[in-house]
């Protein structure tokens, strides 16, 4: 019997730490080779960690939501044969698991003091002391590297509120009293065990003049109790941090313009009528990307990334278009690379591909990084105006609002036109208001006269 330790692998690309987002095993489980044991998340991608050997889980290296450094212990297994942990190495689990969210964890764990008992005892008990020591030094880290067991959690609440279809529970005497009072027991909330209606509940109900009990069921007007604590972990924590960073660092200014997309919409429908079968259907988004690509040639300062610590703005010849995408886990921004080199259909396909990858959680790191500007569209939910948050360290974001048909005056006549707002935000540190306005006007001109999208 030996002990085998799985450590956080070096995922590359300079990643120093990962966040633990899910465990697929628990202490005591038997695992087999290639079985997935945990999900960890890097800056944007979720990585599944497989088990390289057969064995039995002794301890888990952290709790969900905890940040672990590359090289830190993820899992400790009992395996047939020698394992990969030499005697005397036993300091690793506690120190590594408790490693601070810094890149230097490797050196730290090696420098950690030897455990009080030198024997490589796989039981979790001896580990508790060093774990607590490190924990007190690093208060941000959960106190114990061993997993929280089921029994430590509060027991599941027994009493569930009665469903509308469920028969009220009351003793025969209470039922008789309710009938005497002309009260339908299904409107009375029971305070007894299993929701049993007691004489007091009936008296309360009468005292309130037959008003529904606070917290009662069977109606939409009851007062509701209870709260739910949701840990902000994983992608949600990433989003929260990015949003906070962007809003704190970047002095945003918003610019909203109305665009007449009547002609553009006609063109879109014509193209779809001709080519939808062979090339796929077009939404408005590829046209907007095309308009941005062209307008950005006139305003290269907007297709840029601003390193505000080094005070350097990097302008890009290529347009790597970030596409804000709602996924089941939250907002992600997959990137369509080299949007300037894509025709409408390639662009549409590119957007569909990266969005699907993001939604399924299978987006590669390349797909999720390197954007130079971002577009965000909620389609029919786009509203009138939005104030999008810049995808730091980019300097601009263009938001697309809802398209509506409205009566407009044209040559003295009222005509129906399709109108749509573009709501954009810019980093005022490096983009002047005049430039931003002219950039949006350049887009607008091209969108209102769609031929300009193709004739440069």
């Amino acid at each position: 019997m030996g002990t085998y330790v799985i450590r956080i692998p070096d995922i590359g690309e300079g990643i120093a730490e990962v966040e633990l987002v899910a465990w697929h095993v628990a202490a005591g489980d038997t695992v087999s080779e290639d079985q997935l044991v945990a999900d960890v998340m890097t800056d944007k991608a979720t990585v599944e960690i497989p088990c390289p050997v057969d064995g039995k889980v002794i301890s888990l290296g952290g709790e969900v939501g905890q940040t672990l450094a590359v090289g830190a212990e993820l899992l400790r297994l009992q395996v047939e044969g020698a394992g990969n942990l030499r005697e005397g190495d036993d300091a690793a689990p506690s120190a590594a698991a408790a490693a601070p969210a810094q890149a230097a964890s490797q050196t730290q764990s090696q420098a950690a003091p030897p455990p009080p008992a030198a024997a490589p005892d796989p039981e979790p008990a001896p580990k508790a002391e060093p774990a607590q020591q490190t924990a007190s030094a690093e208060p941000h880290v959960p106190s114990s590297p061993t997993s929280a067991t089921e029994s430590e959690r509060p027991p599941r609440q027994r009493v569930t509120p009665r469903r509308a279809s469920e028969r009220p529970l009351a003793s025969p005497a209470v039922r008789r009293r309710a009938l005497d009072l002309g009260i339908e027991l299904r409107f009375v909330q029971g305070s007894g065990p299993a929701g049993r209606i007691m004489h007091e509940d009936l008296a309360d109900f009468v005292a309130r003049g037959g008003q529904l009990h606070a917290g009662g069921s069977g109606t939409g007007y009851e007062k509701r109790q209870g709260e739910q604590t949701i840990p902000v972990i994983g992608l949600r924590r990433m989003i929260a941090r990015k949003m906070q960073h962007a809003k704190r660092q970047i002095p945003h200014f918003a610019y909203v313009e109305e665009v007449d997309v009547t002609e553009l919409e006609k063109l879109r429908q014509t193209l779809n009528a001709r080519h939808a079968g062979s090339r796929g259907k077009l939404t408005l988004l590829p046209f907007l990307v095309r308009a941005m690509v062209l307008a950005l040639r006139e305003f290269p300062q907007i297709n840029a990334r601003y390193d505000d610590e080094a005070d350097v703005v990097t302008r890009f010849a290529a347009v790597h278009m970030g596409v804000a995408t709602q996924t089941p886990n939250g907002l992600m921004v997959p990137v369509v690379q080299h949007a300037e080199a894509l025709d409408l259909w390639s662009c549409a396909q590119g957007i569909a591909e990266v969005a699907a990858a993001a939604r399924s959680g299978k987006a590669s790191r390349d797909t999720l990084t390197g954007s130079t500007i971002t577009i965000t569209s909620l389609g029919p939910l786009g509203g009138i105006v939005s104030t999008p948050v810049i995808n730091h360290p980019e300097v601009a974001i263009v938001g697309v609002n809802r398209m509506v048909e409205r009566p407009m005056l044209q040559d003295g006549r009222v005509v129906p036109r399709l109108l749509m707002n573009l709501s954009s935000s810019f980093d005022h540190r490096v983009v002047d208001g005049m430039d931003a306005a002219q950039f949006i006007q350049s887009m607008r001109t091209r969108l209102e006269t769609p031929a300009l999208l193709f004739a440069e």
Partner: protein
Amino acid sequence: MKEITTRLLVIGGGPGGYVAAIRAGQLGVSTVLVETSELGGTCLTIGCIPSKAMIHAARQFEHAAQSAGGSPLGIRAGQPSIDITQTVQWKDGIVSRLTGGVGTLLRKAGVKVIKGWAQVQDGKTVTVQAKDGESMRVQCEHLLLATGSEPVELPMAPFGGAVVSSTELLSPVDLPRHLVVVGAGYIGLELGIAYRKLGADVTVVEAENTILPRYDAELTKPVLQSLKRHGITLHLDCSMEGHDERTGVHIRNAQADQIAIDADRVLVAVGRRPRSSGNGIESLQLRMDGHFIAVDDRCQTSMRSVWAIGDVTGEPMLAHRAMAQGVVVAEQIAGQNRRFQPLSIPAVCFTDPEIVTAGLSAAQAEDAGVDCIQGTFPFAANGRAMTLQSTAGFVRVIARRDNHLILGWQAVGQDVSELAAAFSQSMEMGAQLEDIAGTIHAHPTLGEAVQEAALQALGQALHI
């Protein structure tokens, strides 16, 4: 024709009708009750009570016979004999004491009882042909139909001669040599076992492939074993073909083989049908539920001020259901707001061993989509059962998994019928498993198995 006017007219003096009449009388409602035969109905005169008397007599006789062969208890006695005429007289004594008691109670409550045939004219008018020859017309504000039920006859073996219903079997003039029971329901098995204990050869014929088809196999297994131990022959999956006095009973089994069984008495106990026609009830054009009169949870029929209770309104055809319905109706007529909404109508099968059920079975709970747990405690681990020489059977409880609310009880074993009180009370009070598990049950009693079953469902059983 003599005219009588009353507030409430009850047709039928069985447990439903007489209880309704007594309660109505107590509440000051002028009440007339019409009964064709004896007060007390099927239950008191030809059902529950006389059958329990005969079952008790048979049990005593069996004990005596066992002692004659030398019992493990060390009792030695001579070979017993039975004077069945005296047994029937003893039984009739109990019945007449009870029916007489009912009459007294009715009189005390101010109820006018008419012995005779009622013919419903309309929802407020009934003509009665009294037994003493007088005929009268009764006008009522409320009409309560409590006409009960009667044994179903088989067309290929009509009642008469050797073919009898439970009624005749409860007042025998002599004991048959070989009794064939058609129908392995509770009536057939109760009487079949009793007659076997009294010394008759007994053969049971059942069309389905199990005895007591309403109960699950676990519950009926101890009864099945008891039938075998008593030497009762069982023909399952067999249909009744006919009967004649010379060659006996003819049945056909699942393989279509015809079998003739020599029999000098044949009990047909294949079910009971409601008395919902034949006395003018059909002329009311009430909404029906099959042959039963359809009623709501107030026991109202589809006609205003016409009420119905008991066997004539459907399953389960049990006296205690009818009695509870009778109270509900009487109190409503007296102006109170009442409904018939029991959580549990317990059912007892007085076979040997007895079966008692209350509430839902595991299968019923599953059908209702309720996630359930169950606990079982065998009488083999109960001290009292050992001292009664009867360790067959068990108590079982069904409860919701989420809040441990008790949904049902089942038990099989000697004398478990008395547990029905505990079962129903726990459910009507909305007890959880913890309530029963936390109640001290007297030692040594069979009731300890009730507590232990609850403990077992909670994973805390102490004695198993």
